[in-house]
């Protein structure tokens, strides 16, 4: 069942390995994620749309997949690169092997390559366009294809993954583990409208957990339509691609500022930044992992965070009298969070909903709840 596979990068570097998953060809920006667990969540995170994901941990697939750990209805990664992909599944919750999970959705996998060499290459040269083929195509041809695909910069991928129709969400985190730690958060009764740029389910679950009925709306929804729903709060979601082309949604969201409490995550922060006059730029290879230290400048405490973004907000582009930086990344000092000095608005670049990743920052959902309470 084993077949050859090739990953070709736009700069001509090729990796020959063994294929798994679907017999297919996939293209996209090649990025790496350094998380040790949570591959199913990564596969299904819509923010990975347009990307071939390299997982740095060498064993992928060990614990299979299960219905509770998906972050959307399907995998969004274009292709997967892993050092070794497990043919065996071992976990009491598993209902489908990771291989079937990806193969049945047409996603190719390349394994048995020196993934660390690939990661170092990306670290040195930045995220690169690439083509992953499990169809025995010649390398030169694949390199040429890699050069022909559009660059990530300037691409509006979010509109492509946003929901076509609004829908409501009320389900909290699933009780799928027999053991748990008690959570002492108060619940309220709020209506939150969530702009969907590729929203992860665990954000919805966390919002539900603070007592919110969520209405998820397409990212092109006009501000008056949002206001007509009389929300207690507005949420601006994560999503794939470059935030720069999202002028339209940013302008609409701008109209909501000051009228309703707003919370944004990841791409949401970038859109809110733009709405408030800020600029974004592309990071060399982005932040993708579960171990990024973020300093909360308000509490002076460090949070270990889950991150997945290729673009960042330029702090110098924000008006300091209007905006207060609340979080910075301790690795590279990039912006990780800000709030408005006068309006009920805050947002973070990282993923407090985790999935995958540590739960250090879940307090932000509670902060959002309190912000909505205060606005009443």
């Amino acid at each position: 069942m084993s077949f050859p596979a090739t990953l070709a990068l736009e700069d001509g570097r090729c990796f020959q390995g063994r294929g798994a998953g679907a017999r297919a060809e996939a293209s996209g920006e090649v990025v790496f994620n350094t998380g040790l667990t949570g591959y199913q969540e990564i596969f299904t995170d819509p923010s990975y749309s347009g990307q071939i994901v390299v997982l740095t941990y060498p064993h992928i697939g060990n614990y299979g997949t299960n219905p509770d750990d998906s972050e959307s209805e399907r995998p969004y990664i274009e292709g997967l690169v892993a050092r070794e992909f497990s043919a065996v599944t071992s976990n009491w919750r598993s209902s489908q092997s990771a291989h079937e999970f990806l193969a049945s959705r047409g996603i190719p996998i390349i394994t048995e390559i020196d993934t660390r060499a690939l990661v170092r290459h990306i670290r040195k040269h930045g995220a690169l366009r690439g083509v992953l083929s499990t169809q025995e195509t010649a390398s030169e041809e694949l390199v040429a294809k890699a050069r022909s695909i559009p660059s990530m910069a300037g691409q509006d991928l979010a509109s492509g993954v946003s929901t076509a129709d609004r829908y409501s969400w009320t389900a909290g985190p699933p009780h799928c583990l027999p053991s748990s730690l008690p959570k002492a958060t108060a619940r309220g009764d709020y209506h939150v409208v969530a702009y969907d740029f590729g929203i992860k389910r665990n954000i919805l679950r966390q919002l539900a957990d603070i007592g919110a009925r969520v209405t998820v709306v397409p990212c092109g929804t006009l501000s008056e339509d949002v206001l007509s729903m009389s929300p207690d709060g507005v949420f601006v979601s994560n999503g794939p691609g470059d935030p720069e082309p999202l002028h339209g949604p940013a302008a609409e969201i701008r109209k909501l500022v000051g009228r309703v409490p707003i919370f944004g995550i990841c791409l949401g922060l970038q859109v809110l930044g733009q709405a408030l006059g800020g600029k974004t730029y592309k990071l060399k290879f982005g932040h993708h992992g579960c171990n990024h230290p973020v300093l909360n400048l308000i509490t002076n405490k460090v949070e270990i965070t889950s991150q997945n973004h290729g673009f960042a907000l330029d702090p110098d582009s924000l008006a300091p009298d209007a905006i207060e930086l609340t979080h910075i990344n301790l690795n590279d000092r990039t912006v990780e969070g800000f709030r408005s000095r006068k309006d009920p608005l805050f947002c973070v670049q990282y993923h407090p909903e985790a999935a995958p990743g540590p739960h250090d920052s879940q307090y932000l959902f509670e902060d959002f709840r309190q912000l909505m309470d205060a606005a009443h």
Partner: protein
Amino acid sequence: MPKRADIEKIMIVGSGPIVIGQACEFDYSGTQACKALRDEGYQTVLVNSNPATIMTDPELAEKTYIEPLTTEYLRSIIARERPQALLSTVGGQTGLNASVALAEAGVLDEFGVELIGANLEAIRKAEDRQAFKAAMTEIGLEVPRSRLVSDVEDGLDFASEVGYPVVLRPSFTLGGTGGGLAYNSEEMHSLLRRGLELSPVHEVLVEESVLGWKEYEMEVMRDLADNAIIICSIENFDAMGVHTGDSITVAPAQTLTDREYQLMRDASLACLRKIGVDTGGSNVQFCIDPETGRMLIIEMNPRVSRSSALASKATGFPIAKIAAKLAVGLRLDEIPNDITQKTPASFEPSIDYVVVKVPKWQFEKFPGTEPVLGVQMKSIGEVMAIGSTFKHSLWKAIRSLETGRKSGSDVYSADLVPKRLITPHPDRLNYIRFALAEGYSVEDICEMTGIDPWFVSQLKSVVDLQQDLAQTSLDEVSPAQLTMAKRSGLSDNRLARLWDETETAVRNRRKEWGIRAVFKRVDTCAAEFESFTPYLYSVYEEESEAEPTDRRKIMILGSGPNRIGQGIEFDYCCCHASFALQELGYESIMVNCNPETVSTDYDTSDRLYFEPLTLENVLNICDEEKPDGLIVQFGGQTPLTLALPLKAHGIPIIGTDPESIDLAEDRDRFGRLLVELDIPQPAGSTATTQEGALEAAKQIGYPVLVRPSYVLGGRAMVIAYDGATVESYMRDAVVYSQDRPILIDRFLENALEVDVDALCDGDEVVIGGIMEHIEEAGVHSGDSSCVLPAQTIPDNTLETIADYTVRLAKALNVIGLVNVQYAVHEGRVYVIEVNPRASRTVPYVSKATGVPLAKIAVGLMTGRKLADYGLSQGVLPTTKVCVKSPVFPFNKFSGVDPLLGPEMRSTGEVMGIGASFGEAFAKAQLSAGHMLPDGGSVFLSVNSRQKAEGVEMGRKFADLGFQIYATRGTAKALRNAGLRCRTVMKVAEGRPNVLDLITDRRVDLIVNTPSGAHAFEDEKRIRSAAIQQAIPSMTTLNAAKAAVNGIAARKHGQPGVLSLQDLHAKGEPLPA
């Protein structure tokens, strides 16, 4: 948060001698702590009784005390040094217990010393199982159902309530000593009684069994600002039921979803906060029911541990170093990550490889004990391997073990498969492979072992691969197949044997095809940031990151896993070699695979290769580095066995030529050399057959010492008084001899043994020390207490010993260190053996004399002369008396005869420094865990040859106010000399007998010298009982004499303490 300015001087308590459950990892953590605190500008006072540690090097602390870790001595040190704080969390359980004892005795309050790291309340909450259970229940974490019992009946009641099996865990014992599983009420009765006796508080926790559940560990750190991070998760390959120190473990966890992992992370942090560990590293253990996912918390250690050393090496995140900095108030985000330099320590390491730890057991050293693994730790050491995948890493780890057996060469019995798989056994992994090859399914294996199917499938894939490869040959194999084999972790040697080729042929073929090892870096971040630290491991992948420099460089081969006879002493020597090379301007490159050690700290050498010490791995590194020199004489036997093959591959070995090392090991050639030099040795011969051995023994005359050639630590040695012993030895010993003959020597009964360490630059010889053994010849030198300077040897004999040593060193062209063992028998000096390499006693001699022998040896090996160090000839002086005493693991191996013999069985050593021999001996005994009594009763039983000396001894005991019990013969001699004593019956004579005295603790000291060929049954039982009751027991008259002197010294003086810095200060030594 700035570091604390209200503290200037900090005391650190080490972990004492190496014992099972507490090994070099605490030298690593203590050394890191000393360095970290010094870097932050604090003065440090270090106390440890173990001279073989790097942490007790006088350069590492302002004041270094090699003293007993008792409240009495620690109090004296505190009174003298007046530290403001005590860091209790880097010295293992011993350091923690000693710190708690100081706090409880009011000493810390008396001198205003603050406990930093973990506070007293946190330590108690974590250590007291009931308090821990209550605390965990409060935060919503489940623990196994349990009851703390202090009598047997209560325990039996609880067991029948929850059902057998139940787990027994005595409170406050080390490495789970006295713990076990009881499957029925009878077993429960005996195990519980023993557990209650061993627990210092007479409590045992009886617990519901979670046998077969998956076991995990989390390494956690927290700073004063409540920033908390996970350094590493570890999954046990062996299911619950095997002590984690005896389990194969894997980092990171392999079979947890993110949801499960994060729950465990949350639980770990909640536990740390609840217990109240303010700063530092802790270890939290969990288990998960594989069927339902139910998670229980098992225990937490509020200190750095064996697992944290492993986690540090596995991730590149130095837990102990950071813990020390956090203890003085720094925050995680204020400390830079050494490896990436640009990012802070407040992150969670990510790794892009797999780490496997495999324990090393030595049950063969303890005949009479069953080689079964359970909840009490039995392993002596461990190895770690880093590889691209689990398979690759596991196979590397297994090769690192140096079992002396070639994988695949063992014979397994199909009948034994179920037994070996069901009952955890040191050989279980091999039996799993055998069973898979025999056609057992993965499901069968999982059911019998409780091991996760993912792990078993990994084993199966390699077993299948080997079977496929066996169908081909070196000529037929394809490059793709060979690549696959190498990436799966198969060694050249293994492939060579599959194909009946030489290792070199396989190596050459793969290199021809470009299949070569490349080196990756351990960088804490899965390559997300650039690494500035060359901490490397080999893989068979595409790209190498070694980036060798073009500096002058010398490579040091380490000593591999700790084992009896080859432990921390050699790691000390290797580290010193590395320090010396750096001082001399060379780049130092360390190769080792023992995660516990200082040598595998990326801070120790310029470059670190965490690799198995096999020919293939070492050659791979040489290919990459092209070192100017390779040092083999510091790592014990491990590198020596590689010396000649490495030389044959053209690797430049510096120092004493491997041919000389070989000559010293070669009986015939060495015998001829001695004849030439006119130096006597005991009559001896060699044999390769049973008949030959018997014939040789007969010619030499009994008793004879029978042993294999080329071993360290006296492995498989016996003293034979008759042919039957020789015969049975030849039947059983062949496994260990591996093409090398058996050696048979005349055994010099009642001789005095002497150990000498010397330095030679090719022209001159300086003797580091002439160590007089306190036990007689026949007791392995590693198991004998010894003293510097020699106490009873006449000057002319010392001169003879010095003269022989000089001539031998020169004759063997020694460049560096040489160790010679002598026996003095009826005034005549015999050479027993010569080892042209660093010996076990190098650190002890270095600390006693203040002269760093290993460092100087490296200077000599790189072309310096003794004169360059201000040394010319003669014996180095000592200003005080220093006694080294061994520590034994007998309490871990029930049913074993603790009588000392030619087979080394001690795991560690301590040193006592005193103004007199008696004081030094008493301190050493105390440090070794034997409190010499100040008075009370002594039991004397002396063999007939030694009656006169026995009487002298009796008189001294009587003078010290002891009441004397003696067996009939000894009692008669004592009474004839006018001494009062009470007669006790021997065991065989009836009751009440000596055993009753011991069991009721009516004697405080036992002097019982063996009488000839065989230990009689009752003598064996006396010594076993003495060990169980922790009554000091002397089995030689020399030791007994030292004990008498020690007791006398203690009676006459206060506990004197002296730092090494003061001991070796230039000019007049300070008074104690």
